[in-house]
């Protein structure tokens, strides 16, 4: 029983990270039907920028809290700029191209960003600075850390902020209208280019926050880390119904929990044949099962709210 609760907690933490990244996929897809496969790399760059900024500030003698916040801010700003540039340079010229073209471009951009990161930060694993005090808690036989609590709280607050933006502001209304009918939204005076750019920029900011969380959680980073994280977050978005905000949030958390439970029990299930390092297969089993039986995902009906 305690391993069950333990894995639920671990899954919830990992899931909140997936959810934040999945939102970046789903916002862009909802508004322009594009799967931005370079989004995982945006997250990776968020992590690496934080290492550089927070790491050097700490070395220069700044308090860790200040350095951490500065690192987070830098990551958010760099990723927002990167999201904006991706849309402007790579995707906007292909707005009217056949659907396959921007998709291939997205894969290309993902490779470009990985190589760029490798040139800047090198090929080696990097240590992420400790930004939060290490504290452990126990509850009903399960352990969790302060870092885990903060990841879940920050993720929840960020998602709440996103929902407010999308459902309570004029920009959010314009984004939803554009997702539903871009030609008519433009007749209402909405500058479609700006709204699409906003979806990229906001999604990238969420990705940066997720990138800082990943670094804080695993304390290690690498220029290829965005690939698997991106694929899993994409799976989470598909699981929830791609294009749907609530779907991405729920899909992320569900995927995190499925993965954690899978990793916790896979040894027992296979009589010790497969170990917990096989946990990655669960995400892809989920992806295949969803695509086979409910490709529209949990919330992906035509009536679902897209943004």
């Amino acid at each position, binding site marked *: 029983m305690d391993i069950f609760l333990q894995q639920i907690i671990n899954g919830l933490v990992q899931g909140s990270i997936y959810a934040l990244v999945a939102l970046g996929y789903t916002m862009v897809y909802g508004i322009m039907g594009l799967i931005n496969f370079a989004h995982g790399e945006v997250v990776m760059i968020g992590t690496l920028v934080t290492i550089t900024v927070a790491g050097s500030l700490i070395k220069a003698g700044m308090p860790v809290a200040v350095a951490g916040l500065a690192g987070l801010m830098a990551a958010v700003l760099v990723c927002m700029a990167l999201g904006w540039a991706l849309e402007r340079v790579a995707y906007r010229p292909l707005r009217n191209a056949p659907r396959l073209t921007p998709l291939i471009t997205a894969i290309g951009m993902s490779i470009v960003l990985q190589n760029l990161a490798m040139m800047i930060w090198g090929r080696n694993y990097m240590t992420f600075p400790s930004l939060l005090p290490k504290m452990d808690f126990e509850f009903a036989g399960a352990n969790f850390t302060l870092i885990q609590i903060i990841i879940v709280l920050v993720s929840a607050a960020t998602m709440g902020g996103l929902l407010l933006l999308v459902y309570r502001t004029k920009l959010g209304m*314009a984004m939803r209208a554009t997702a539903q009918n871009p*030609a008519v939204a433009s007749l*209402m005076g909405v500058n479609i280019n700006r709204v699409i750019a906003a979806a990229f920029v906001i999604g990238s900011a969420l990705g940066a926050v997720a990138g800082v969380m990943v670094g804080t959680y695993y304390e290690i980073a690498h220029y290829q880390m965005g690939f698997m994280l991106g694929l899993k977050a994409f799976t989470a978005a598909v699981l929830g119904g791609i294009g749907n905000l609530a779907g991405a949030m729920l899909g992320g958390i569900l995927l995190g929990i499925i993965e954690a439970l899978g990793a916790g029990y896979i040894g027992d299930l296979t009589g010790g044949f497969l170990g917990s390092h096989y946990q990655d297969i669960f995400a892809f089993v989920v992806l295949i099962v969803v695509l086979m039986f409910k490709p529209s995902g949990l919330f992906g009906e035509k009536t679902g709210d897209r943004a």
Partner: protein
Amino acid sequence: MLEVTGLHVAYGGIQAVRSITFHVNEGETVALIGANGAGKTSTLKAISRVLDAVGGDVHFCGEDITRIAPHHIIRKGIALVPEGRGVFPRLTVLENLHMGAYIHNAAVDVEKDLKMVYGYFPRLKEREGQLAGTLSGGEQQMLAIGRALMSRPKMLLLDEPSMGLAPIMVQKIFEVVRAVAADGMTILLIEQNARLALQSSQRGYVMESGEITLNGESAMLLDDPKVRAAYLGE
């Protein structure tokens, strides 16, 4: 107020509109009638910049608007009620109306405009919180017109407001269109229901295969034997 000169619209090799010229004066309601595929919608799309015209130009209040950005058309004072209504299905009625007022910021004035629209269409007030996609066709048409009015336009372009509606609903919609016109609005009205369009307008143009073949006072067109034979089913 609106001057269209030599407007030409094509989809690849298909010539939808072949060099048409017409105008609408301030305060007038002008009907543009014609059979399916005559090029009426294409004309409106080119004026409202949903489509690029291949040739010709469009002037509005003396200004050349042939090549301005699509999202600036409404800022010039032109509001299109598109064919098939084009409401945002997963926004509420109220949100749709607020989208109509997207170019305005002063909340007080938007509230006033909302009252004006609800005055024309009390039904919309009752359905304020409902998703637009769940409205009946007639209600969606009301919403599309109300949404256009929310931008405080100088001119309304209506693309087949009667399409797919029961006669009673058509009557209701046209009552409001006439009321809006009586309150001083300039209107370009596209219709397949030629009788209704000509009865609701001062002047009319008849379009056939992308060209304007007849024009004149609406009352005169209603009596024209060619129009009667081709469009009034007599």
